[in-house]
């Protein structure tokens, strides 16, 4: 009798252990599947996004999208090339270099905060910081560096910060944008940026995609809208309208104002996620910032 009970207990124990093992395998499997899924979904998004422009502008080489509207409109390109003979952003680069090399009050400098002393790293931004759980753009990293060294943060849209960013971008010319989505938290930030990009907003009820995908290359009033592919590669940019160099988030705010949507804070989480999404979509394009735009 005792032997029978013992055998039954052992059998139950084995069954329980088996069930536990199966559940562990199932959980691990679902984790891997989920991880595979979000990576596959990002890859699919990139392929679809880039294929959209290939179909829309079959004559345009992929590498040309780094040049914004000048990749798709010959007349604008001609004017732009003439302007590039005397690049209007050169002063910003010089000023940015001086600022970059000037030590902080504690004797340290920007070079101490960045990989490779801050040279040739623009293509690695924005990235998702898994420890902080947020997207870090180059401009945010510059201000984080300042604050870590006891300096006051700079204004995000123009001036010293835009010039520093311009200098750092200039040291990265030709490097290829390869922004990754490393984990599920990053995928959430990426998805938030994607949702913003495709959501209609403002009194005019336009989304980013309406102007920069649906009617890219067509005229909105006097301007030809640029393709969304490659948007982040040339920033910061000198705009004739601004008469100075400005950051990508300044441009986001301007776009939002144009469609009568109240702009959101520069370097706030929403615009950083949008920049993250746009940068992932532009994977494979070269950094050519700073650049000039209308």
């Amino acid at each position: 009798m005792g032997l029978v009970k013992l055998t039954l207990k052992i059998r139950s124990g084995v069954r329980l252990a088996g069930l536990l093992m199966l559940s562990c395998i199932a959980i691990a499997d679902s984790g891997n599947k989920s991880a595979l899924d979000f990576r596959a979904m990002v890859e699919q998004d990139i392929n679809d996004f880039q294929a959209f422009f290939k179909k829309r502008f079959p004559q345009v080489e992929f590498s040309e999208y780094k040049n914004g509207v000048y990749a798709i409109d010959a007349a604008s390109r001609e004017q732009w090339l003439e302007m590039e003979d005397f690049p209007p952003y050169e002063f910003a680069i010089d000023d940015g270099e001086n600022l970059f090399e000037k030590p902080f009050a504690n004797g340290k400098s920007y070079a101490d905060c960045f990989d490779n002393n801050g040279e040739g790293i623009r293509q690695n931004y924005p990235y998702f910081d898994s420890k902080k759980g947020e997207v870090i753009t180059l401009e945010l990293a510059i201000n984080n560096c300042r604050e870590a060294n006891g300096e006051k943060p700079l204004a995000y849209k123009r001036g010293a910060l835009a010039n520093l960013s311009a200098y750092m971008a200039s040291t990265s010319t030709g490097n290829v944008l390869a922004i990754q989505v490393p984990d599920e938290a990053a995928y959430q930030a990426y998805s938030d940026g994607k949702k913003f990009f495709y959501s209609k907003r403002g009194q005019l009820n336009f989304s980013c995609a309406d102007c920069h995908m649906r009617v890219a290359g067509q005229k909105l009033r006097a301007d030809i809208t640029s393709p969304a592919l490659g948007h982040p590669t040339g920033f910061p940019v000198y705009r004739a309208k601004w008469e100075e160099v400005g950051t990508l988030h300044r441009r986001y705010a301007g776009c939002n104002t144009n469609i009568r949507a109240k702009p959101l804070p520069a370097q706030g989480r929403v615009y950083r996620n949008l920049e993250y999404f746009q940068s992932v979509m532009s994977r494979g394009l070269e950094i050519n910032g700073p650049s000039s735009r209308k």
Partner: protein
Amino acid sequence: MNKLRVFFIALNMAFLLSNSLYATADINSILDDARISVEKAAAKGFEWTTTRKLIKDAEKALAAGDKDKSLQLAKAALNEAEKSLVQASYAETHWRAGIPL
């Protein structure tokens, strides 16, 4: 005859007075609703650039005693604020419909 005339004048004045009092309360109520809605839209990141100006202009017109203009502006502000909320709610559930792929 005179009594009848006095009665109608009094009645008319009462109507005018009550209409004026009603309009002020009505405008303030509409403006309150517009303010609440615009704050909600702002919290969702969907505020329009034009709505707060309409509210401000309605307040100015009301302070200047131009109730007709104020009422019109307050209604326009509320209409915009509510539309921006509808836009936010639509985007929340239908943003994928905006993907032109």
